[in-house]
């Protein structure tokens, strides 16, 4: 129980540029960008049509965003793998993290040697209010929605509780955002590639251009506490929230026997864990930690034989800044209440002792919800191979990494552990 029956390797990983692409690029276009990127990442090349035995595709809600529902066969067609099986997996914002898990389990079981997993989401086809409402369908639409719940609102409720219980402050949240903007600025695939300082300077320049007195901001914190960063759902402000994004990502998995055909440097997925919690936030005993994520992390660690202290970098689900703090505590990197001070002390920056979200995270890389889980694995693939673009490659050899992907307000969570 709880062990993979055989080893599973990540032998290719790629993604589209994340951004607001609609109508220039749509689900099928973004998926092909991710496919090309993945094919190019396989050292010895791959013929998907010959090798891939199944596709698991993460997608939250093309039904609501795009009036497209039956996406998996289309994406299998574009990958050239017909008549192989293909299935769409929905688990809110953890859809493709779960797709990755099913791919790992399929290879580990021995039923397949090569599996393609991916995720795609095009969110900007509908106006923002419809994005908010469509995302809210991942909460309890019967009980939470009529009470006013939105995703920013639910995570803000988590933040209120975290602040009350642990003394977490808005500065801790700002430091999560500032770090992730610094990282995203180094990621050519990110939706936003500016630091907070650059965002602030641009706003000051704009005001000056209009011939008005520029705001007296002496630091990013002054800017982040100003009316230029309004409350979306108190205590979360605009810059605490992830973005509305279009994008796709893709991973090629192979069994140990077959992996060497593709590469001499596979990345092994040695732990996979998934957990569930009540759909409604209100049904839980605690609002400051997600039982689903704790269970997923414990399961993945147990499977891999590793412990939180063994992990060198991680991509965690920062759909809101508070979510990054909750993630760091749920995985076990920090004790409850200690993540905020650790982030503010710089421990999770690229040059800190535990770099978190070197990709820029959901905050700046972007959050095309159904593609997020696999995009996290793409960053780990690059960091572990030492090929992360620009200046964001960490300065040490990454031998052990982790991804943490959450659906809804913690109703689903999935964690993977990677080793070289």
């Amino acid at each position: 129980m709880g062990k993979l029956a055989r080893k599973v390797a990540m032998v290719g990983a790629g993604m589209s540029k994340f951004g607001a692409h609609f109508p220039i690029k749509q689900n099928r276009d973004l998926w092909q960008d991710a496919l090309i990127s993945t094919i190019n990442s396989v050292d010895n090349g791959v013929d998907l049509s010959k090798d891939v035995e199944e596709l698991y595709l993460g997608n939250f809600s093309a039904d609501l965003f795009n009036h497209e529902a039956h996406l998996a066969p289309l994406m299998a067609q574009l990958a050239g793998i017909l008549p192989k099986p293909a299935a769409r997996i929905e688990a809110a914002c953890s859809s493709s993290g779960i797709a990755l898990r099913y791919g790992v389990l399929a290879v580990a079981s021995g039923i397949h040697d090569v599996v393609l997993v991916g995720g795609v989401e095009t969110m900007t086809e509908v106006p923002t209010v419809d994005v908010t409402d469509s995302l809210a369908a991942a909460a309890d639409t019967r009980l939470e929605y009529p009470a006013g719940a939105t995703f920013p609102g639910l995570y803000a409720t988590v933040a209120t509780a975290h602040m009350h219980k642990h003394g977490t402050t808005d500065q801790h949240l700002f430091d999560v955002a500032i770090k992730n903007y610094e990282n995203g600025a180094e990621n050519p695939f990110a939706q936003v590639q500016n630091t907070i300082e650059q965002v602030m300077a641009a706003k000051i320049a704009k005001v000056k251009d209009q011939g008005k007195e520029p705001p007296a901001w002496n630091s990013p914190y002054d800017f982040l506490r100003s009316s230029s960063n309004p409350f979306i759902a108190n205590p979360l402000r605009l810059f605490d929230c992830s973005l509305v994004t279009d994008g796709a990502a893709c991973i090629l998995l192979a069994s140990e026997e077959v992996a060497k055909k593709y590469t001499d440097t596979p990345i092994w997925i040695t732990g996979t864990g998934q957990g569930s919690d009540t759909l409604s936030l209100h049904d839980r005993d605690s609002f400051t930690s997600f039982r689903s994520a704790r269970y997923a992390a414990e399961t993945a660690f147990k499977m891999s034989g590793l412990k939180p202290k063994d992990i060198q970098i991680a991509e965690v689900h920062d759909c809101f800044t508070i979510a990054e703090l909750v993630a760091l505590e749920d995985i076990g990197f920090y004790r409850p209440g200690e993540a905020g001070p650790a982030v503010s002390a710089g421990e999770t920056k690229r040059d800190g002792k535990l770099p978190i979200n070197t990709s820029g995270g959901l905050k700046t890389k972007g959050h095309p919800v159904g593609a997020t889980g696999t995009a996290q694995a793409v960053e780990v693939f690059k960091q572990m191979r030492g090929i992360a673009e620009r200046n964001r490659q960490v300065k040490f050899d990454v031998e052990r990494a982790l991804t943490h992907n959450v659906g809804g307000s913690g109703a689903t969570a999935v964690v993977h552990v990677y080793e070289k």
Partner: protein
Amino acid sequence: MTDKEFTIKNYFDFFNEGKLMGNKCTKCGTIHVPPKKLCNKCYGTELEWFEFGGKGTLQSYSLIGVGARYFANQGYSIKKPYCFGVVKLEEGPHISGHIVGPDDFEQHPDNFKVGLPVKIKFLTIETEGKEPKIDLGFEPA
């Protein structure tokens, strides 16, 4: 009290009578809201309707500026936020509700704190061309 089936529709229909109704397992005493057909604790299937007294405490909350369309339609906006809250009912279970108060109560963050005693206030939502809808709300006790 009633032999109505333990369905989500019947749960909401009781709002029209000004009642928050859950159910209680006759075997282990667990109280559920909304009612369940299968006791979440002991799998018992003998349950009876249970009326909540309406008192509780605010466990956590957010003043939401960019809200759901349903709330935008009720006149809320980034300039006029509304309060979403999680309430622990004095009988034990938790439930989500719209937290309201007199005048512009919701627009003042200082009016809210974790632990605030609240009581149920059913809210009538008027939508043009539709029957009024009753939602679960709470106000300071």
